[in-house]
Structures are given as C-alpha cells and as structure tokens.
C-alpha cells in the first residue's frame, strides 16, 4: 500500500498539513488541556417568597467574585432580596463580568404557583428575556436555540481532545465518501451517548472518562502508524465502526458540559437538541478547515520529506498519551 507512489505522496501532503496543526497542539498542551473540560458554571437561584418578591442565593458560586446578575429595570436587587412588584420577574436578564473564565451563568427562578424556569446566560448570548410562560413563546425558543447552539459550538471548539480525534479520523479515511460515513458514525455515536448521559440514563465519573477519551486518541495514533507500515488495522478497514464506538465515549464527555448547567426537565430535550446542533456545526467547520488545508497543501505541492511522514502520527499518539497519564 505504501509502495504505490500516488498514495504515498497523498500521505505526505496530509502529513504536512497535520504536522503543522499538531505542532500548534504541542504548544497548547500544558495550558489548554487543563482548561478544556472545566465547566466554569455559576448558578443563582431565586425563590419567590411573596408575589413579586424573590430570595436569591448562589447555589453554585461563581469563580469570579465580581460576577453580578443584572435584572430588568423595574426590579430592585438588594442581595439577597429581589423585589419586582406586580409585574413579576419578566424582561431582560443578564450578567456583568462574563468572559472566558466565567463563560456561562444560570438564573433559576422558582415561582410559587408555576413550574421552575431556568435562564442560561453565556458570553455568546449575554442577554436573555424572561417570560411568564416559557416554551409557548417563539422568542423564548429562539433564545434557547441561540444560547445552546452557541454553547455547543464553544464546547467543541475549546475541546482540543475531541478535535484531535476528529483529525485522526480524517487521516485514516482514504476517500471522501468514507470520510462522510465515518464522521456521520461519530456524530450518531456521540449524539446517542450525549442524550443518554444528559437524561441521566448513564453516568460515568469525569476523571476516568477523560482518561478514556485520551486513550481513544492514542488508539487512533497507533492505527495511523500501522496504516503507514502497510498493515490495514481495524480503523482503516472499518473506520465507521471505530468512529461510532468512540463517538459513544466522546458524547459522554460533551454531556459533562451540559449536565453541569442543571437544566430543568422541561427544557432539557430542546436544550440537548440545540447543544448537539452546535457541536455538529463546530465539528463540521473544523472538518472543512482541515480538508481545505489539505487541498491547499496539494495545490502548493507542500509535502513533508519522506522521513517525516510518520511524525504526526507519533505526535498525536504522544500528546494523547501525555493527557492519559496526566488524567489518570
């Protein structure tokens, strides 16, 4: 397989593109891996004690102590009491001090005579509208969509281990059609387990999960080296099976970001749907960028020297092995 010249030059083109990406991953290793899975969440719960009067309390305190909720102008916020009068808590909700360190904050409202409501404010969606009857209003749905789609995009773009795994999958597939099937299998896999974990049907502790995700990337690295030596491993022959199986694993990882928000059961399915859509958008964008880079390398005939073809596979493998060790 490696003796055919066309295949080997294609390999070298891919290798060149991937090495460049990996060099960067190497630089990011120490800082990024530490932050990729932190869910910097803050939750404030407002319990209605009398009509229009709420008692507020941080049920999950913010990392950044300067973070403050901003309530509609007709409300008076004197911690821990919020007085909104007859109109109740409706209107614009926001937070002051949202950024990359504290990217998401949630306001939980527990009215006396209605179902609890949860409003998620993120740096990507800094203002949400509070309404009396959630789920019936189109604006509320759009709010939810914007919040969770963005959350999903952010999560995948900041999750370098997921991206690295996808990078490995792109590499292991030899044709465009196979790539489509493989990425679809990965998507189906992680959607299933994301849903299962979000609804609480399965639960895996975070540390072993992250270690297992790192191990999945090591596996892909090994498969690439095998492929280059001419032994078509399991992944090269049936990439979609491997992608599906590990997709289940990575979906559990995505779920940690979502479950940390403590979304109420009523909005959970729709939040999950939009979050998943966001993850797919981010993943698709990443795949597009990598494919375009490979295309550009081919146009410029920018290939690695023959001795360097195996470098990226070893780099993927060792980066992931390092993660595995640091997570165990």
């Amino acid at each position, binding site marked *: 397989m490696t003796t055919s010249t066309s295949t080997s030059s294609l390999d070298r083109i891919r290798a060149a593109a991937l090495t460049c990406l990996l060099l*960067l991953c190497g630089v990011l290793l120490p800082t990024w891996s530490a932050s990729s899975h932190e869910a910097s969440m803050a939750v404030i719960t407002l319990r209605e004690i009398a009509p229009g009067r709420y008692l507020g309390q941080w049920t999950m305190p913010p990392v950044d102590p300067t973070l403050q909720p901003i309530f509609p102008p007709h409300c008076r916020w004197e911690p821990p009491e919020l007085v909104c009068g007859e109109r109740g808590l409706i209107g614009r909700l926001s937070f002051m001090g949202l950024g990359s360190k504290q990217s998401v904050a949630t306001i939980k409202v527990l009215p006396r005579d209605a179902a609890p409501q949860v409003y998620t404010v993120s740096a990507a969606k800094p203002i949400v509208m509070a309404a009396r009857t959630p789920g019936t209003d189109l604006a509320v749905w759009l709010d939810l969509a914007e919040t969770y789609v963005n959350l999903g995009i952010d999560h995948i773009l900041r999750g370098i281990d997921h991206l690295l795994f996808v990078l490995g999958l792109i590499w292991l597939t030899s044709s465009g059609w196979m790539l489509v099937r493989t990425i679809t299998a990965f998507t189906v896999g992680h959607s299933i387990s994301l849903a299962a974990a979000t609804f609480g049907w399965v639960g895996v502790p975070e540390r072993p999960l992250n270690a297992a995700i790192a191990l999945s990337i090591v596996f892909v690295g090994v498969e690439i080296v095998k492929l280059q030596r001419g032994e078509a491993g399991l992944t090269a022959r049936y990439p979609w099976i491997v992608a599906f199986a590990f997709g289940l694993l990575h979906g559990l990882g995505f779920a940690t970001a979502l479950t940390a928000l403590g979304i109420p059961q009523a909005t959970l399915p729709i939040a999950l749907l939009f979050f998943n859509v966001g993850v797919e958008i981010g993943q698709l964008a990443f795949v597009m960028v990598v494919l375009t880079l490979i295309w550009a390398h081919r146009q410029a005939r920018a290939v690695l020297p023959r001795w360097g073809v195996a470098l990226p596979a070893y780099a993927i493998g060792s980066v992931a092995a390092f993660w595995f060790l640091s997570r165990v």
Partner: protein
Amino acid sequence: MRTKARLLAGATVAAVLALPTAAHAHLVDTRLGDFYGGALHPLTELQQILPWIALAALAAFQGARRARWVIAAFPLALLAGGLAALAVPAPPYESLVGIGLVAATGLALAAAARVPLPVLVGLAAVMGLLHGFQNGQGLPASTDRLLFLAGATAIGYVVMTLATGAALAFLRGVGGWRPIALRASGSWVAAVGIMVLGLQFFAPTAS
C-alpha cells in the same frame, strides 16, 4: 471533487475575510479564550492580513516549487517574532517597516515580479518576525501569552496556506485575465500601503 474543493476553499476564505468586519472581535476574544483571541487578532489588523494575502499571491506567481517554502517559513517566523516580543524591546521604526512591507509586497505583486527563492523566503521571514512581534507586544497580564501566540501562529499558517493554495489553483485556470486580476489586487494593497505610509510621514506635520 476539484470544483467542490474550490468552492470550499472560496467559502472558507470568504468566511475568514468576513470575520473582522463582523465587528464582534472582542466577543470571540472573551468567549473562546486566548487561543481564538490570538487567532482573531491578525484578522482584525488590516496592516497584517493585507500583506499576508499579497505575499501568498506573490509566492503563487513564482510557482508551487518556490511558493511552498513560504508556507513553512512564514508561520515559524511569526512564532519566533511573538516569542521575541516577550523578551526584547521593540525595534525602532517597527510600525513604519510594517507599513512599508504592505506597500512593497503589494507593488511586487502588482508588477508580478520574479523573485528569487532566498528573497521570497526572506520577505516571508521579515514579515513573520515583525507581525509576530507586534502580536506579542503589550498583551494584558490576564492573557495567556503562549496560547495567544499559538493562536496567532495558527491563523498565520492557515491563511498563508489557504491563500497560496487558492492563488496557485486560480493561476492554473484558463484565461489571461487571471494573472491580471491577481496583479490588480496587489495594486490595491500597494495603494493602501502607499497612502498609509504617507499618512505616517505627513499627518503629524500637516496641520
């Protein structure tokens, strides 16, 4: 497959170019962390992104065998420049040299100059070092410098590779207007460079 790839490349480049005008640079900056902040920074600096594209097109005029060295040299220089900014003070006339580079690469592209390989790689290295230095300079203390510089280097590699590949593919197409179109874009970049350079010299004394 080829046309598909081209469309894809076009769409990506367009998306990349559209980003800075979207005017929510700071949102992405705070939202996705310092890596993406660093990646977005050069895209909002027209004095960086313009000569990058001109350099890529100039490299494409030299043919793939020479152009590919720019893809390797430029990001490395960008990273080296960024790291240097953390250690040494700014060189004199740094901003003038930067604007001069805009005019020079634009003019070279407009003329479709034949550039020997060492000069081409040297131009890429000087531009990379300078822009890397500018990226690494004066970052606020709360910024993770390494991540920021990695992001800037990544975008340098991505833009340079995509632009060079796209320009090479564009020039391979049929039609005498293709090199003219690329040279015209070089002339645009040069015009901007010349006027902003003029602003540096004349503006403080104009009043």
